[in-house]
Structures are given as C-alpha cells and as structure tokens.
C-alpha cells in the first residue's frame, strides 16, 4: 500500500504562511539543492510555484511584473531562438537544427493545404459576431460528435478565442484572485505557468508525479487522488488558496490517457474541495492507437460538478494549425462563459479566420474520411520508427499511443542526477543540431527526462534520431555509473 510520508517531509519550504514573497523559495528557485538535501526515501510531493522568486534583475524601464514577464521570455525562448537562427532546411541549410522540441504536427500540411478554404472577405465589425455565432454553433456540434457527448452540446456554452494560452489566461483571471492558485499534476506543459501568471498573477501548485511505481500504482507518473489530496493540503498549510485543478488529457508530456474511472475520481476530488476543473483536451483527436479508448470528459454521463467543469480544445494540435490561433472553451457555467467572453476583446481572432474555421469544422466528410485516418496512420508510422530507434539505443521511454511526443528517460546518461547535468545534455543535443525539450521545462522533479516530438517528416526524423544517437553514444561512455533506475519498458497500446 502506498503510504503517506510524514508531514515534515513534504514541506519543501521554510515558512508556512508567508506566501508570494521572495523569501518563499519554490521548486523553481532552489529545487536543486533541496533535491540533493532530501533523504533518498523521502518524496517531494508538491511545490508552490512563485514566479517572483525566479529572477533578480530589476529594469529601470519596466514594472516589477514587467521584469518577471521579460524573464519568462528570455528563459523560455533560448532554445527556440537558437533554432530560429539556424533552422534545418533540406536544400538550403542541411546542417541546420532539427526541431524535435516544439509539439507540432508537421505530417499533414499537404492534406490541409489541398483542402483550400473558400475565401470570405468581410472586413468590418470589430467583434464580428455574425461569424462568431456560426462558429460557436459549429464548435458545439463538432464537440458533440467527436467528444461523444450524451446530449448535444449547446452553442451558448461555447466561447471562441485565439488559442488555449488565452483561455488559461482568461480563466485564471475570472476564477482566481491575485496570488491564488491552481493544482496541476507535474510534469506538465510548462507554458501554462506563464499563461496564468502574465495577466492573472495566478500560481500553480505542482502535484509531483514520479517514475517509481509504488503501492497500488500500475504505471509510472500515475496520478492518484492521494497525491492530489496531499498537494492540496500542503498548499493550504502554506496559506495558499487553491481554486482549481488543471488536467491535460491526453497528457502532455507523458502521453497518458486518463480512464473514465480515473477521471471521475479526480472530478469527485475536485467537487469535494469545491475546486474548478479545467480539462485541456487539445490532443483529443491525436490518439492514433485505436485500442487506447480515449474518453473526453464531455462524454461522461452525470459529471460530479458540471458547473465547475470547463473543457478546452483547439485546432493547434489536432489539425496541426498552431499558427492559426484558434481555441475554444466549453462550460455549462454561464457566469464563467460570460466572464471569459468579456475578455475576448483581447483575445479575438480575425473574422475571416472564424469563417474558415467554421468551414473546416463543418467538413465532417473530409475530417472522417481523409484527414483523421491519414493523420493517424502517419503519426503511427512516425511513432513506430522513433520508438524502434530508441529501443535500439537501449533508451527507456513512455508513450501511450496519443500525442506527438515520447517521454524519454535519459537519466542513465547524466553523470549526476541534477538539473544542471540535464541542461548540459540538452545543450549537447543542441550543439549537435537537434532541439529537444528537457524535463525541467515541464516541472518534472526527476532530472534526466526529455520530451521528443516525433510528428515530423521521415527525413527530418531520421536525421534527428541520428544526431541524438551520436550524442548519446558519445555520452553514454562518459557515464560511468548509471543510477539504479528501473527501466520502463514502453507500455503497449493495451490500456
């Protein structure tokens, strides 16, 4: 049985009660030292994110929040910037960087561009509700169909804006006061930290998951209600007010899919504590293993607390159109829908893009008969290729037949289990012209995990994997004493 550690051990910080001060060091600030200082049998269960603890330099031209915001930009964009200065191109720059770090689906541009949208030019009307009304109807019917909702979803519960980042920002603002927090199982898509902070000044309390399978757990990085409870209690004991829980399903970066049973447990937990649940289902149509049996939260009969369950979806991932900036919220709570819509003035999308989106979502024949089968087949092929390469390299990884990425365990390639070493390895990849994402960016508490995006064209993947192999083979000889990590065999698509 999984036993709860003593209370002291899950205190990652010093002074309870003092919140949002710079004295409060979060996992961001001194995670490394704490990691090292902890006894091996103790687990770090949660951490309260505090963006103010992350930077030190003040600017004469910026406000203090402006300086933090700039810090976000400077730190997060490092790899991306390097990549942009030296992008790989088959003909023009074959020695350039291959990007296996950004989660984008580059496999289906041909399908998308062949389905040329008819053009609609309606230039006026800042709010463009005539388009928006149609689009909301299309979204409702689209989600009813693909999420298999028991009853048709209603257009008035739909809010449309320019991407899920905006949705996180708007939801954080209308659900939380300044300094309040959301729970989020970590590792998670790290940009959310920034989205909820920029305007909302809302923090994230990480529910740390780890690779070790203990007690009744059946798989690595498993989210359990116990862990949620402990993180919540921990945050409360520090004086942090938690207003909601963020779930990503299919999970990013783990590729996990929550079963309906698990999902219901998490929702019940949230209801018990009167928490909102934001379910980010941005990869819902990118489940390429049929046998996985993905279930949207909108398909559940009798949600525990429908008024506090808010579902997010976008076309960025499932239609490989991250540049189009389209995201949507489905919530039965009219107060939330209205409040988020009030902020749409700042998150609007062009009238004609709305029109084109409506056209695309309506084209059920093309989606079902052309796009989805082809997309899934290509994802599967790319996934098969990369996982075989990894197996050949003897690298353990997690992947569940959903999403565009594989969560790769490179712990044995770190001479020391620290985030510095993780970053060094990441740099070595970058120097060898392949961009990956390191685990720290996802608030993973175990150093040595990387996210590898496989949804790219075969020739780029081949080259990317070659470059990874070069680094690891050069590197693995250096690592004299690989830490005793259990090797995860890739879980088959049997779940």
């Amino acid at each position, binding site marked *: 049985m999984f036993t709860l550690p003593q209370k002291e051990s899950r205190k990652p910080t010093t002074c309870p009660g003092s919140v949002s001060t710079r*004295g409060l060091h979060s996992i961001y600030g001194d995670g490394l030292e704490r990691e090292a200082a902890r006894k091996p049998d103790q687990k770090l269960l949660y951490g309260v994110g505090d963006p103010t603890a992350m930077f030190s330099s003040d600017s004469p031209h910026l406000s203090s929040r*402006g300086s933090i915001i700039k810090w976000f930009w400077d730190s997060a964009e490092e790899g991306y910037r390097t990549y942009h200065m030296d992008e790989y191109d088959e003909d023009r720059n074959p020695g350039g960087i291959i990007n296996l770090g950004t989660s984008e689906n580059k496999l289906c541009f041909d399908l998308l561009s062949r389905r040329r949208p008819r053009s609609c030019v309606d230039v006026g009307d800042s709010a463009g509700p005539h388009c928006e009304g149609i689009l909301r109807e299309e979204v409702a019917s689209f989600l009813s169909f693909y999420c298999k909702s028991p009853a048709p979803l209603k257009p008035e519960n739909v809010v449309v804006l320019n991407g899920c980042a905006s949705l996180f920002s708007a939801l954080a603002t209308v659900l939380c006061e*300044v300094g309040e927090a959301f729970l989020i199982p970590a590792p998670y898509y790290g*940009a959310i930290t920034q989205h909820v902070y920029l305007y909302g000044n809302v923090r994230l309390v990480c529910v740390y998951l780890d690779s070790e399978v203990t007690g009744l757990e059946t798989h690595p990085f498993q989210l359990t209600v116990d862990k949620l409870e402990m993180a919540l209690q921990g945050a409360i004991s520090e004086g942090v007010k938690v207003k909601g829980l963020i779930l990503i399903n299919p999970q990013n970066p783990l590729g996990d899919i929550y079963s309906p049973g698990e999902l219901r447990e998490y929702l019940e937990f949230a209801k018990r504590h009167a928490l909102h649940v934001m379910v980010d289902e941005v990869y819902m149509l990118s489940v390429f293993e049929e046998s996985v049996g993905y279930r949207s939260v909108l398909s559940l009969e009798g949600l525990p607390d429908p008024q506090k369950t808010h579902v997010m979806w976008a076309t960025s991932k499932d239609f490989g159109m991250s540049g189009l900036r389209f995201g949507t919220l489905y919530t039965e709570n009219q107060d939330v829908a209205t409040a988020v819509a009030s902020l749409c*003035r700042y998150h609007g999308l062009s009238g004609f893009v709305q029109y084109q989106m409506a056209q695309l979502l309506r084209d059920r024949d093309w989606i079902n008969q052309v796009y989805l089968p082809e997309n899934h087949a290509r994802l599967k092929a790319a996934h098969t290729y990369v996982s075989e390469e990894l197996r050949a390299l003897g690298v353990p990884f997690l992947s569940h037949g959903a999403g565009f990425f594989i969560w790769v365990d490179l712990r044995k390639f770190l001479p020391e289990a620290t985030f510095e070493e993780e970053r060094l390895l990441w740099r070595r990849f970058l120097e060898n012209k392949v961009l990956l994402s390191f685990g720290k960016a996802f608030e993973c508490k175990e150093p040595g995990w990387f996210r590898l995006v496989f949804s790219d064209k075969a020739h780029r993947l081949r080259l990317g994997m070659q470059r990874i192999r070069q680094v690891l083979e050069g590197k693995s000889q250096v690592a004299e004493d690989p830490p005793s990590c259990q090797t995860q065999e890739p879980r088959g698509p049997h779940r």
Partner: protein
Amino acid sequence: MSIQSRSNPSDIPHMSDGQVWDQAFRNHSIHTCLMEMVLSLQQAVADHITQLATRHQQQDLVPEEQGHNQPIWGQEALLGRLMFQMVNHLQFGATGGQKFQPPCPSEDSKGDVRSREQAQVSKQIYKIFYQLTNFEDTSINYVLSNRGVETSALYHGSFQDYNTYQGNKYHEDKNTSGFINLGTSENKLCTDLLTERLSRSDMNYIDDDLLQYSDWRGQPFLREEVAQFLTYYCKAPAPLDPENVVVLNGCSSVFSALATVLCDPGEAFLVPTPTYSDFVFSAHLYAKVDLVPVDLESQVSDANTHPFQLTVDKLEQALLNAKLEGKKVRGLVLINPQNPLGHIYSQDSLMEYLEFAKKHSLHVIIDEIYMLSVFDESITFRSVLSMESLPDPNKTHMIWGTSKDFGISGFRFGTLYTHNKEVALAMSSFGYLHGISGITQYKLHRLLQDREWIDNVYLPTNHSRLQEAHRFITNELKSSKIPFLSHGSGLYVWISLRKYLDPCTFEEELLLHRRFLDKKLILSCGKTFMCKEPGWFRLVFAATPLLLKHAMQRFYTVLVEQEQDWVVKQLEDAINQEVEDLPASDASQSYSREVILTSGLEGCCSDLGL
C-alpha cells in the same frame, strides 16, 4: 484594488451630496437608502484597501513584513465579496418590494415624462440604478473571483448598446427600423475597395510556416513590412528597425500588454480627457492600471486658446495632484490625432509634452491609429516617429493599427513601435495571449506592401469620401446650430448638446443618450470618454450618405422632443411656483442660466470658425 473608482467607465459622480440623500429619503423606501449606504461603504472600504496596498508597495519592506500583505489581500477579497452579496440581497428585496424597475433601453422612455411627479421619481430611481449597474450581473456568485464578477459587469455595462445593435442592425432594404450605429468609430466608406483588394489572388496564400508557431512578436516578414510602412508614412528620419516592432491582435491588446509591463497594479498613467474609452477599459480589465485624468475644458480663456487644449501646466497640475493622492504615475497616454476631439498636436506642443514626460521620467504612449485618416489636405500631421531627436526615445512608445485607417477592425491587428528593446522583449511574452493567425499576418503583409494601391487608389478615395461625409454632417450641425469640434481628421465630430440638458448633468446626458437609443440611434456620450463636462457626444460620420441622412432624421426627432419636454417642464415649474405662492426668482434664474449657457457655446463655435 478590485474596485477602482477613477478609471471605471460606468462610474458616475459620487452620491455623497447631501441633497440627494435627503431627496432619496423622502421619496423612497428604506431599501433604496440602505442600498446607497452599502455602496458608499463599499467604496470607502475599497479606497481604504487601495491606500493600504499602495503604502505597502511604496515602503521598502523587509521580506518578513511582506508576508503581512497577504492578510490584507485576503481581507480585501472577503470584504469585497460580502459587499457584493449585501448589494445583491438588497437589490433583490427592493425589486420585489417596490417598483424598482431598471430602465430598459428598448422601452419607450416617454413614460418617464408623462406626469411630472412620475418623471421625478423615475429619475431618482434611475440615478440609483445607474450606480448599481456595476453590480447588475453579480448574482451571488461563488464561482467567479471578484475581478471576474467585475469584468463581466463592466463589460456588459459598457457594451450593452453595442450588443443590442448587433442583434438589430439597420439595413437599407431589409431592416430600415434597425439600430443605426454612429457610436462605434469604424470607417465603413471604403469596404468596397478593401473587399476587392483582399479578394485578389495574392491574398490566398498558405504555407507550412503560416500554420505553425511563429516568432511570438509576429512573423518576421510582417514586422519587416510594418517597419518599412511606418518609416514611409510616418516620415521617419532613419529607417525603423523590425526588431522594435511587436505585432498583436489589436491596439487594445497592445495597450493592455504595454500597461502591464510598464506599471504594477494600482500604478497610473496620466491621460488628457476626454479620451478614447477603450483605453479606460483596457487599463482596467486585465492590467489593473489607473488612469489619472488631465481634465480639459471647452471654455476658451487666456491659457486655453482653443477648446479642450492640452497644456504643460495642466499636465504638471494633474501630476502633482496624483502625487499628493499617493498615486504612482508611470506614464502619459496621448492620442494623435486625438479621439474624440479630432485635434492634431502640433510638433511644438508634442515636443513640450515629451519634454514634460522626460522631466518627470514618465513613459509616453502615443496612439496614432488615425494617422492616415487626416482627410483635410491643409492640415499637417506629424507622427512622433518623424521627429529628428526625441527627448527620451527609450520611453517613447508608438501604437498603430489598421482598424481605423483601413477600416478593417475585424482583422484584429495592432502594432507597437518602441526604441526600447527591453520593452519590446517583455511585450513579446504577450504574443501567446494576443497572437494573430499566420494567415491574417500574411494578408496584412500583402496589404501594407501594396504601396501603389494605397497611395493611388485607397488613400485618395478614402480621403475624398471622408471629406464628403464630413461636409454633410457639419453642414447639418451648423444649420441646426449645434456646436461641434472637428479638425479635419478622424472619423467623428465632437458635438455639444448641453443646451438640451436641464439641468446639465451626467444623468441628463445619459437620459438623452437613452432617448437616442429609443429612436434606434447609437451615439457615444461624453461620460464614456471621461469628459468632465456633461452634454458632449461623439458622432461618427464615416458612413454612407443614405445612412447618415436617416441617422440625422432620428437625431432631430429626439432633439425636438427633448426641447418640447423642456418647455412643458418650464411651464409646470412656473405653475407650481405660483401655486406655492413664491416669487418667480427660480424662473429668472434658470433663464439667466440658459443665456450664459448659450453664449458660452456661441463663443466656442466662433472659435471654431463656425
């Protein structure tokens, strides 16, 4: 800090005035009075908390002491929530108990004036209701945060008219009884040109790059195009640098993000008023930045050579007052050409304002969104980017967008040009939240690139159509002796309807606004621009001649009715006074007041060369 009074657009002057209280007590039940008290209490608490928070921010606190801020935040949230609940309970009680009916815009408000007494009562109730509009949507709500509740209420208070309009738009064939919107500043004169240009085949390009994540500051090709475009049209002395360009989905977003990176919550910008209402809104909604008004006056005097003139003295005074109130002012917001006044700042005045800002190390945000809508050839507009040497280039930030100058507000495009790299980088983070579709970015890039079409087709046509529409409206206004301000730029005229208000208050202004709505005509009233003087309206003329004609018919109908009601009221007052056997001093007083009012306006007209 969740309840700010100053920068709140639907705020009206305080009810602390004793007369109002007395009147209210005589006319209404205890419910209504209680409601007012609660509101005042709420305001008091909010102010107190703001002060507390400001003081804490100003002091250099040792880390342990900072912890004490937290209880204050908590307290604030709790108090705020309690207040909201009380107001709601009371509002509910009052509505059930007596005829506390919120006036509905679509209802005929003639009922108000059917009998003198009834009108008086409904006006009082209206006054109270108006104060409550901030809270009308706040059904006891544990779901949303306080700021969430406030956001909803503020939005619906401010955009109610617009939404009504969207549901029932005027159409010359299909819906002649629909709303005519001369309230929203949009240029609808050139949609034919734009539709044609945007339908050309070069616009329908799609490639992989447009569908993927791009640089969050905007696609490099668009930022380069914007830099070149601004270099050319702003007549910059040296080519502008694409690295200094940030592209977001609209100028509201640019302003909101800029306010966030330049100010901490509760800090402030100076803004000459009347000013564009959306900035009031944008400062408040997300950024929680206050706007400190620099009140300008219509009266012409020695120091004020033209109506609503901005002078450095007034800036100094406003800054001083703000400092005395403990406000931390971080910048100055200028709009040039001005909205709603249509002013253009001369290069000398602009330089004075910039020097003032430099002296106090303030940022200057200058919005030049109407820079290509200067349709009077005799006027020379000078962009801030055209100046040879800016006093403080690192603190001068220019905003532009295509919404007004190209009449494509539905495109959602706004851009910032700043010499300050740090500000540009901090702004970049907001690309996540205010990003534009790659496809839209491509179209904009093509549009801005087509210099030949812009110079030879679009701008000349647009300007001549604007001139024509402007001539029509100004002739109408002149012939009906309505004073107005307009300087040959922008899409609107700033008109004074003070002589139709009696008394000349913001409540009366709002009632007149409602009357226009009853006749399905939308104008913007001065209050939404934070204008200090009641009775001003902004009328947008960038619409087709036919629509303008219809609109003016409705406009006159309302004014005639308003005048008739005024006469009736005067007579009734006179009769009442005779009955009460009082000397007619009141009547003569109002007569003399009328004379002053009219002569004041004449002065204003003559100054404009009317």
